[in-house]
Structures are given as structure tokens and as C-alpha cells.
């Protein structure tokens, strides 16, 4: 009984951390793409000096 509860808790926290990882990766990649790669000219111009300093390939 107690073993079942423990394993259910472990799998629950495992799926919780998987969900957290997926959300954080998608959000993180989205933000980094926006500042470093987004081709829209307005975004490029706004982030220009950051892109050069952080060595993202620029223009």
C-alpha cells in the first residue's frame, strides 16, 4: 500500500517536472529567438546592440 502511494507520488512529481521542463524550454527558446534571431527589422533594430555584444549573427 505504502509502496503504491510512494510510486504514484514519484510519477506525479516526475510528470510535473517534465511539464515544467517543457514549458521552460519553449518559453526560453521563444525569448532567446525573439532577441537573437527574429528577422523582423523592428525587433532587430531594437535588440541590435545586444545581438552584437552577445555574438548572435547579425545582419
Amino acid at each position, binding site marked *: 500500500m505504502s509502496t503504491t502511494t510512494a510510486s504514484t507520488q514519484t510519477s506525479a512529481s516526475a510528470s510535473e517536472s517534465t511539464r515544467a521542463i517543457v514549458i521552460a*524550454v519553449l518559453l*526560453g527558446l521563444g525569448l*532567446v529567438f525573439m532577441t537573437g534571431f527574429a528577422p523582423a527589422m523592428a525587433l532587430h533594430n531594437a535588440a541590435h546592440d*545586444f545581438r552584437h555584444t552577445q555574438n548572435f*549573427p547579425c545582419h
Partner: protein
Amino acid sequence: MIIRLLSAALVAGFLAAVVATGLQFALTSPLILKAEVYEEQAGKQASLSSPFARLIMPAHGDAHGHGDPGAAQEWEPSPGLERMAYTGLATLVGGVGYALLLGAVMLALKREPSPETGLALGIAGFLTVALAPAIGLPPELPGMASAALGVRQAWWLMTVVATGLGLYLIAVRRVPLTIAGGIVLIVAPHLAGAPLVVDTDSKLPAAYAAQFAARSLGVSLIFWAVIGLAYGWAWRLFGEAASSGNRSHA
């Protein structure tokens, strides 16, 4: 858990952005402004010598416009305070993005976030996204000759993925076979060769370019170190806040 990760990443990204923005204003932005003067001169000369030259040369017509001549009409922040504000904002967004990725990797590796593990992962982040691509494509100032953007972005991305995987195989898996595989992965993009353009008509003094490359890597190192340290610190902080919150409810 996701709330704790997001909160810690926000705090880490903010602190790192404050530090890195200050360093960028002091060290790299002045060099970018100096380079744009040369870039502007080159653009004027090119448009005088041939109406088509601006299409061929990666030179920019105005002080800050980019790429093709049509881009001159695109929005850009006005010089001075507005431009600095957008640089700070971009650093903040980029910092939070990197902190989220660092937090996700930390969780995936099942490491307990602390300032120490955060710093170690931050250094790995610096090696992966800053130093490794910079070995092939050094940080460049506006107006320097370079290969087509798509080619450079593809090489950058390939190098970052290969280096990240390589470091994982070496530092986390740590058996002879994976270490050998990791070294191959890290070296391969450099053997394939970066799309670097050496010939240039730019009058930009080489000393500026060299100084910019060194300073830019220095800023990146501190940016990543602060992201890692602050993430570990903030993770603990939000953990304590949550547990003391639970206790007070109970």
C-alpha cells in the same frame, strides 16, 4: 514547481540584465557607435561610386539602418536614451530566456539548484552559446564583412547544439566512450569550418574589432555567471518562501 522555476528565472534574468546592461554601456556600446561612423562613411562612398553597390555591399546607408536599402524606412530606436533603453530591454528578455533554459536543464539533470550548481551550469552555458561559436565567428562590429546571414545563423546553431551535447556527454555521462564522442561533437563544427569572411574594404581599425571581440566575450561570461548564481540563489529563496508559507497555513 513550474512557478518556482519561472520566478527564479525572472529574478536571475533581471539581475544578470542589470549587470550586463551596465557592462555593455561601458564596454561594447561605445565601440559599436564608433564602428557605425566607419560603416556610414563606407555606405556613402559606395552609393557615390555605384547605385548598385549598396545592394552588393553589406554596408548600411544611414547610421543605424541595416541590410537592403528599403530597410532605411524601418523603425529603429532614436539615438541616445531610447536606444539604450531598448538595449537594456533586449538584455532583460534574453537574460530571462537564458535563465529559463538553464533552469530547464538543471531540472532535467536532476541537480538541486544552488549558487554553486547554477554557476557551473552558467559557465557551461557561456562555453556553449558564447565561446564555442565565437571561435569560428568572432563577435563582430557593424560594418565588418561577413557571409550571408542564413549561413552564419545555421553554423551558429549547429555549433551551439553540438557543443551543448558534447559538454553533456563529457561532464554528465563521463565514461570514456561518451567523453570521446563529446570531444568529436565539440570539435566537428570547427573542422567543418565557420563561414568567416576575411577580405574586407572596411576602414574600421582592427584594434576596435579585436577589443570588441574580447570585451563582448567578457560581458557574456559575466552575464552567464550572474544568471547561474542568481538562479540558484533565487530557487532556494522561493523554496523557503513556499515552505514557510505552507507552515503558516498549517
